[in-house]
């Protein structure tokens, strides 16, 4: 399973591509690609969004479900989804309920 992630150009905010084509600030809203076709669709949308200068550093990331919640496989992506592990008061984790980074 994969998600498409990027940073928003104007402010660097971490975003994921949502099913309705928006760049969501919350990983729980991300569209999950479960097969090759879906992955290709994500990649294509990502390339177009980068070309439109909405986002930068577009990447596919691997995720799994843990206790019913999206869980990026790499720690790096879990920290991107939450905010710095040393500052629970900063970043996305401060704004809403997201998965714990570790």
């Amino acid at each position, binding site marked *: 399973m994969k998600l498409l992630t990027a*940073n928003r150009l*104007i402010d660097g905010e971490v975003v994921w591509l949502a099913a309705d084509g928006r760049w969501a600030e919350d990983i729980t809203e991300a569209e999950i690609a479960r097969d090759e076709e879906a992955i290709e669709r994500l990649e294509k949308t990502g390339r177009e969004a980068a070309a*439109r200068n909405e986002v930068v550093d577009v990447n596919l990331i691997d995720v799994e479900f843990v206790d019913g919640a999206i869980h990026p496989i790499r*720690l*790096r992506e879990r920290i991107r989804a939450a905010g*710095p592990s040393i500052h629970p008061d900063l970043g996305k984790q401060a704004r809403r309920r997201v998965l714990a980074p570790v």
Partner: protein
Amino acid sequence: MYRYDEFDHAFVKARVAEFRDQVERRLSGELTEDQFKPLRLMNGVYLQLHAYMLRIAIPYGTLSSRQMRMLGHIARTYDKGYGHFTTRQNLQFHWPALKDIPQILEDLATVEMHAIQTSGNCIRNVTADHFAGAAADEVADPRPYAEILRQWSSLHPEFSYLPRKFKIAVTGAERDRAAVQVHDIGLHLRKDASGRLGFTVYVGGGLGRTPMIGKKIRDFLPEEDLLSYTTAILRVYNLHGRRDNKYKARIKILVHETGTEELAAQVEKEFEALKESELKLPEADIQAIDAYFAPPALPARPEGDAALKAATATDSGFADWLRRNLNTHKNPDYASVTISLKGIGEVPGDASADQMDAVADLAERYGFDEIRVSHEQNLILPHVARADLKAVFDRLVEIGLATSNAGLVTDIIACPGLDYCALANARSIPVAQQISTRFASQARQEEIGDLKIKISGCINACGHHHVGHIGILGVEKKGAELYQVTLGGSGDENTSIGEIVGRGFGPDEIVDAVDTIVETYLAHRQDKNEPFLAAYRRLGSAPFKEALYGREAKAA
């Protein structure tokens, strides 16, 4: 300190305007990311995990109160209320929005600061001893030379696209507090037999993937030859440095592959041609720069000793702080104060906007308006009357910056690591916080004595782990964090690169491992006067391996 002249002002202003235009064109889509990225990097703007990062140059770590207040203002207005002081004596903001950065740079320019050459393959911020101009053991203030190098290297057309980044450090005392031997060029100021000032020159030092200690290629370089000789080194490097492989592009690899003798010969040859050129520094120019760094007029304050005696009698916390956080000043009525940014369990090197303001106030009131950033990620007030130390300490207590741990086991260097950095493999800061918490007891720390722990979140070694007495390197193994430990590193006048002690430790094991290393030292040291590093150099790694890995080590 150095003040911008008209040229400097116009130059920085023009640069801000240029970058404002570039950001506007990027946001409007006129520039692609591929076109824009090198431009933003030239202005210190990186993209990290959560946001952009802006790295601001603090030349040779020297700041005025006004500049420190501006950093606080930026932290509060455009960022999340804090900043991170780095091992290159710079400051990083971890959350600025791209759209705000031109305005941040404009604000910075009003206090004679910028972010130029804090990234890219150019000559980076020149670093220096943080006690420069104040330390009793100093031969001469290294900052005028660092400033001369800064002016010469700023937008130097020949050296703006080097094979790789280039770092120069200068120290002016017998004891090297600027780690000059692990820089691309290390300059150690000294006097020759006739009393002339000059430098011992080291080249090809560096950490990262291939740590190397700089090779001495000149025992004594007269000060007037500083720029011609440096230019000669850079020319040889620019011509022969390996542009084919990023990992072999630093000058340390060139020195290693060429051989020190041959490289020195090439440099001398270039130098011969440049020696009598316009790069030769006229005495008058050196003096003109020197004048900017003239020490403040320090009035006699002989009441200090009595004041300290009275205060320490009733305040043991103050006594602890005096014992650890002072450095001997040239003037016996004064001291240099280390403001620890390593509170127990805190993030090494972070300071809040309020703390920045408070330190600026202290510097203004008690410190002749001078602040330094140390490469050990602390702040320094270089000139404080001993009679004022209690007042300074009391205020530091109020703002949470009075930890008495300079040089102790909790005075840990840690890079931002995987909590922020896009290149990281593992987190550094939480490891530092946990070690700090484990060793919180002041009595235990002082019993252990001088011990430098340095932590990096990847092999780029921004946390200088190779030269930590105990070095910790975060790696990623099978998707998890793992910490490799090195012992016996040191970044002073007797530089050594730490040796890997054995297999790495998981996040749950690393603090215990450090504890075991410290206990092994305590059990084996000759007495309290043998610090960790000396004991390690005498004992070697065997007892530490035995303690960490037991039978496993013997079998191996």
